[in-house]
Each structure stands twice: as C-alpha cells, then as structure tokens.
C-alpha cells in the first residue's frame, strides 16, 4: 500500500470520525437508534457543494451544511418526542424524505466541485501538497470537535443529556426536560454528520445523491471497533475510541482492497465492512475466553 493510499484512507477515516462522534451521541449516549445520518450526510454534501458551485464562500457553505444536518436531526427528534412516533421509524421517515430533499437541493443527481474553491484549497499553504494537507486539516477539525464534545458533556447541560439516555425517568425526577434533551442531542449528532458530508464533498470532488448509502453502518462500525479496542464509559476515552475506530476501519478497508493477493475489488466494500464489524463484535468475547483460559 502506497503512502498516497494510506493518506487517502486517513482522510476518509477522519471524515467518518465526525460521523462516528454523531453516532456515539445518538446510539450510545441518548440510546436513540437514529438512521437519519444516511440522509443528513448527503444533505451536508449537497448543501455545501450547491452553495459553493453557486459562488458562495466555502466556509459559509460548510456552516450551512452543519445547520442543515442539525435541522434534519431536529425533525427526527420532533417526530419522536412531540408526535410520539417510534424513534427508529421517525429516523427512517426523515431519511426517506431527505432523499427527495437532497435531489431538490442539488437540482440534479450530483454537483461536481472541480475548479471551485474549497475550505481545503483556501487554507492550504504553498509548502504542503494537497494530499498531505487535507488529512492534516481534518485532524485539526476532528480534534476540535472532540474537545468541544468532551467539554459539553462535562457541563450541567451535557450531564443532563447523558442522564436522559441512561435513565429517563430519574432524569425527569431531577427536573430534566428529557424531550428537549433528545431533540437537542439528535440535532447535535446530525449537525456533526452534516459537517462530515460537507467535508466529504469538498475532498472527493463533489456531492452525489448516493453518497449517503451505508453511512450509518460505517458510523456504527467505527463506534463498535473503537469500543472493542478502547472500552471505557468515560466521555474523553469514548470520543477518542470512536475516532480511532473510524480511522482503523478505513485503514483495514484500504488494506483489504489494495492487497493484490486477496483479490478484493471496490464492489466488495460492504462485504469487508460486515466482516470487520463482525470481528470487532467477537473480539471482546475472544479476549474474555483467552483470559479465562489463562486463569484456569
């Protein structure tokens, strides 16, 4: 595997680390199975790419993508909290609706970004080549996102959100408006995913209507892989774990697809994902058995 493919894997891994942070908030912290991400990821990409190709400043376009993702998440939360639609179903409804909305936003199935400026091009110094600079900037973005989440979940408000997912009845008895916490949390989660979509479009040469397919599976894979290598319920380590999980996941995918002797091709991506997640799920069990055998 060349340095170029390695850096490419790191680049996509870091973008999906943002998705993984979002999935951590919905699935793990709020225990809300949210599939909206399959729609909010391409929504972020669509909004950013369409705005940029219309001449907007890439920074404002990226910000707009975050807001769009958050609004999508808010709608899912609203359907669940206010209209009492089951959480999973509410997210599927929004995901389905977003497919049409994304087509509307773009006005066609894809919006290429070839010569248009992106946040990466605007910030890139002369001395660094683009395929090195992109992962560098992404590392910075992911670290900032991680630290902001760590900070938030240590505040009174963030603690109330964690409590909401852990024990809703007790949280209400402590005066937490759990409905609003779910709304805010799912919005925050999908805002992160919208950001990931916007950055994906700006690194991969544009937005495409099909770019969201399987986003949730990759996000969950990252969370599960992260948890199996760094099991901890502390927020600092939990956020670190899912970021590492996303990078490791992309690294193994690149390894599998680029090793000539295995003979895997790009169309085998989903198969590789499933196998990786299965391995990550079984890993803790194998570890326990190994420990038990040593002890016995």
């Amino acid at each position: 595997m060349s340095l170029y493919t390695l850096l490419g894997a790191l680049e996509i891994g870091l973008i999906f680390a943002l998705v993984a942070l979002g999935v951590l908030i919905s699935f793990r912290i709020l225990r809300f199975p949210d599939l909206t991400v399959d729609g909010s990821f391409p929504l972020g990409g669509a909004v950013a790419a369409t705005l940029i190709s219309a001449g907007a400043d890439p920074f404002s376009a990226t910000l707009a993508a975050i807001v769009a993702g958050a609004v999508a998440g808010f709608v899912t939360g609203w359907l669940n909290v206010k209209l009492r639609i089951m959480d999973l179903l509410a997210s599927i409804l929004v995901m389905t609706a977003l497919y049409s909305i994304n087509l509307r936003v773009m006005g066609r199935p894809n919006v290429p970004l070839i010569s248009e400026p992106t946040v990466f091009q605007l910030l890139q110094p002369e001395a660094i080549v683009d395929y090195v600079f992109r992962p560098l900037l992404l590392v910075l973005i992911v670290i900032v996102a991680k630290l902001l989440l760590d900070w938030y979940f240590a505040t009174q408000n963030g603690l109330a959100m964690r409590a909401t997912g852990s024990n809703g009845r007790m949280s209400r008895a402590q005066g937490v408006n759990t409905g609003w916490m779910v709304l805010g949390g799912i919005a925050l989660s999908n805002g992160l995913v919208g950001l990931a979509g916007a950055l994906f479009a700006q690194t991969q040469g544009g937005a495409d209507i099909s770019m969201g397919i399987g986003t949730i599976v990759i996000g969950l894979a990252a969370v599960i892989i992260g948890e199996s290598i760094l099991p901890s319920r502390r927020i600092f380590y939990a956020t670190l774990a899912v970021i590492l999980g996303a990078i490791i996941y992309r690294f193994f995918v690149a390894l599998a697809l680029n090793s000539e002797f295995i003979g895997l091709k790009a169309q085998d991506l989903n198969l590789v994902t499933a196998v990786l997640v299965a391995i990550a799920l079984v890993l803790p069990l194998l570890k326990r058995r190994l420990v038990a055998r040593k002890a016995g």
Partner: protein
Amino acid sequence: MLDARDLHVTFNAGTPIETRALRGMTLAIPSGQFVTVIGSNGAGKSTLLNAVSGDLVVDSGRIELDGVDVTRQPVWERADRVARVFQDPMAGTCEDLTIEENLALADTRGGRRGFGRAVKAARRDEYRAHLATLGLGLENRLEDRIGLLSGGQRQAVSLLMASLRPSRILLLDEHTAALDPRTADFVLQLTVRIVAEHQLTTMMVTHSMRQALDVGERTVMLHQGQVVLDVSGEQRKGLDVPDLLAMFERVRGEQLSDDSLLLG
C-alpha cells in the same frame, strides 16, 4: 406542605378492566411532617405517589405544594418541589454516570442547567463529606460508576441525592422493599436521620405495617382509593401491628357491607 384534594384517577376507563385507582382521595400533610402510608395492593398507594410526583396526571382534583397548584405540571417542571426515592435501587440513579456525577445531577434538581462545569471542585468536597456520613466508604469512590455499587449502597446514595436540594415534599416509594432485611434496616435508619436533620415534609409508602408505625409521626391507611384511617399523636403511640390489622379488617368489612347494602 402537600394539599391534595378530591383526587380521581381511573385506569382503562370504559373497558371491562376499568380500575378506579383513586376515588376522591384527600390528604393534607403540613410542613415538616413525616407521614407513612399503608394499604393493600390496589389501594391506591402508588397511584397517589405518582400523582404527587407528576408521573401520572389525575382525572380530576387539585394538588398543591406550598400553595402552588402543580396539578397540571409535568414531572420535570415540579422537580424543584418534589424529591423522590424509587422502590427499585436501579431506578433512582444513573448507572452509566459516576457517583459524583449523580450527585451533581441531583444538586441542580429543578434548577437551570447551563454550561458551567457539572462537577465543581468546591462541591466535590461537600459530596465527599455527605458520603462519609453514610459510613460505606463511598467518599473514596467519587469517580466510580454508580452501576458498580450494590442495591443498598445505591439506595443510600439516592437518599443523599434527594436531600441535597430543599424540597416541599420527599416521596419515598417502598424504598426499602427491594433490599435484604439488614440493608433495608440500614436504609430506613438513614431515612429517619436525614428526614430529621433537614426537617423534610415526607410521605413514605410502605408494605410493612411495622415500618409504618415505627417511623414518622402519622400513619395513613388507604383503601379503594380513599383515606380510611388517619392516626397520629397519642392514639398512634398506643398502636401495634395487630391493632392496625384489626382496624384494616374492620374497614374492609364495612366496605363489604356497604356494597351488600347497595346490592341488596
């Protein structure tokens, strides 16, 4: 103080399994009084408790806490007035959070939760001092997940949490029923101490007649969604479990004969 007037709650109204859980329940508890509530299954103990906490909305009637009408307020909105310990030790604490995080959550009960640090260094010392009074060694385990604690320990922490902030009423929902006898006794003694220390207005629902007479200063018996017996002071001092049982049987008997009159 609690002032509950003419509460009515009917479950599954209009169906064959219709249950009239509260039928004109009226109960006033003056400030600082410790009331124990007993009654057989289906007497309306839990329903009354859930109505006061806000978990359940009454069909009719009025609930006031210190003169403020809370009848229509959801649980989280009246949480600044109501402290609560659940029957299930797992229900009153967040197992994924640490001991200090649970205490911090209770420390802001009913208050505004902004973006300040949840566990403040200054408060941490206070939590440690509170935990030390339990005599369980928990003061050295502030950063342990509360899920690692036993049921009795968690219930003791729940009691602490309920008394961190002032409340208009403390609701205890058979909070020793799920514990082994020794631990139950420990938690009960702790309850008595904390209630006395903070002079809390308290309503304790219990299955045990012994417990109902041993602690508190007033005992209320519920039957078919109403208060049928209300003893305090000298009258209560002379009572023993058999007396209470006899009273209970008499009340039930009367109720039966009432029904037979109606049917006849």
